[in-house]
């Protein structure tokens, strides 16, 4: 059984900054989260009308994934069933749950209701890229890099997946953090070993 896998790309969106592979690629200081997300969408010239209908959690995860994969991933190398997504956060879909609850006092919003589960962000990414591999969304107090390393390694080493997008995507009010990693079996330029230490190092570099 092959046991070495690699972090071949990373994308972290936090503190008004977007970092790709540990390098800042976009910054917008004077905006709240909704405006910051739209600014990222426009800066990277993304074209996906459904983006505007997503809740903030899905927008954040979707944007993080777009930037993560941009120029870093040859999706044609893999079958859709071999590309998985494993995400986690602390606040589940609470940000949208609260907004949806407010609408129920007058007229419940179907468009908000559909985002009252955290794993919808995985669905939005999968629809965009036609990924059909194993996926899961876990709730933790904080980003548990040890668990993510173990869980994703198990999926890849047992050939359930050939590659996996994994990490942390969390939103509540104006607090947000997306830390996404692309894990593959093969080394590439600037890749590092997929270990919890390396996940922590990249995560903490951008998140203090």
């Amino acid at each position, binding site marked *: 059984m092959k046991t070495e896998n690699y972090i071949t790309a990373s994308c972290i969106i936090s503190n008004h900054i977007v970092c790709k592979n540990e390098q800042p690629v976009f910054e917008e200081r004077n905006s709240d989260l909704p405006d910051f997300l739209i600014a990222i969408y426009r800066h990277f010239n993304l074209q996906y*009308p459904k983006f*505007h*209908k997503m809740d903030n959690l899905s927008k954040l995860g979707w944007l993080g994934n777009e930037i993560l994969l941009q120029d870093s991933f040859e999706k044609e190398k893999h079958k859709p069933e071999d590309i998985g997504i494993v995400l986690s956060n602390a606040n589940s879909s609470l940000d949208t749950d609260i907004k949806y609850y407010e609408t129920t006092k007058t007229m419940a*919003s*179907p*468009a908000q209701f*559909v985002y009252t589960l955290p794993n919808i962000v995985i669905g939005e990414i999968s629809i965009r890229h036609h990924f059909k591999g194993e996926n899961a969304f876990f709730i933790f107090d904080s980003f548990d890099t040890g668990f993510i390393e173990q869980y994703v390694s198990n999926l890849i080493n047992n050939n359930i997946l050939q590659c996996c997008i994994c990490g942390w995507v969390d939103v509540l009010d104006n607090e947000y953090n997306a830390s996404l990693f692309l894990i593959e079996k093969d080394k590439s330029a600037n890749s590092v070993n997929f270990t919890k230490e390396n996940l922590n190092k990249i995560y903490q570099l951008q998140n203090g």
Partner: protein
Amino acid sequence: MSDLKSQIIAQLNLQDTKPEDIGDDQPLFVEGLGLDSIDALELIVLLQQQYKIKLSNAEDGPKVFQTVRTMAEYITAHQAQNA
């Protein structure tokens, strides 16, 4: 119909779409504006919130929400009935 188009854009959060981008007879679903089933529910909410119209028969939906014009005609007919 311009007001109705603005209301549709706001209700469905169709950013980057202007009222003049939506043709009066352009299909709202699938090949036209590309709306989906959740959008259909939001249009029902729009009718209730803005015009106090409850779509009592779900089977009327596809006809009512065919285009902006069919929506406007439905609203006008309903308002005339209740005048």
